[in-house]
């Protein structure tokens, strides 16, 4: 599978090896890291939850789309689930291609699509004790964070 979930730290060394190709002259990788702030709030940790059965199918479709759209050699995406600390890697995308422009474009395309299409949810925990599901609580018009007070 060219899209996978993992409960553990992403092994980028092994992942990168899957993209090696004697005809590839360029390799681009993206990592999403847990940032210490979001929309003005201090983040202390995150939880990722995924509907994995559908997620791997949709992820595979995204990689397939990228391989059709850009003249690249190989592409792979691995997304972490579970509890993450600051600076932990949440997602990794790697692309190899003959020329570098396509590797940049395809890698950017894949991470954009993954963020929009793959059923993964992120709960942020804040220094002030609140927490919230990103994209959900605020746009839901629900009392923001209120039900999450410790």
């Amino acid at each position: 599978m060219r899209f996978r979930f993992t409960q553990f730290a992403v092994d980028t060394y092994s992942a990168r090896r899957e993209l090696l190709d004697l005809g590839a002259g360029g390799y681009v990788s993206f990592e999403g890291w847990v940032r210490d702030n979001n929309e003005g709030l201090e983040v202390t940790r995150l939880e990722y939850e995924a509907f994995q059965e559908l997620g791997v199918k949709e992820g595979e479709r995204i990689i397939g789309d990228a391989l059709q759209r850009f003249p690249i050699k190989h592409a792979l995406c691995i997304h972490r689930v579970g509890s993450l600390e600051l600076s932990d890697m949440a997602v990794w995308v790697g692309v190899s291609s003959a020329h570098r422009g396509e590797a940049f474009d395809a890698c950017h395309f894949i991470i954009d699509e993954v963020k929009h299409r793959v059923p993964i949810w992120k709960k942020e925990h804040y220094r002030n004790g609140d927490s919230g599901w990103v994209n959900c609580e605020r746009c839901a018009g629900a009392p923001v964070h209120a039900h999450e007070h410790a």
Partner: protein
Amino acid sequence: MQLKIHYYALMREQAGRSEETLETFAATPEDLYGELTARYGFTLAREQLKVAVNSEFSDWARPLSSGDAVVFIPPVAGG
């Protein structure tokens, strides 16, 4: 008709469970979401969600059959 429902993220917390098997007369995912919102007080509007039946994205008007597995998909936030 018996359906299997899985809940994720905010909806899991609001339903107070991650899955259940349900006896229902809901003919479509749309009907089912109305029924479950009445029960659990989901705060997400139907327009904010997608729905999957048997682990594939589905139309809200698709007729449901006994044994189907339904998942409502809140706005995603990967990466």
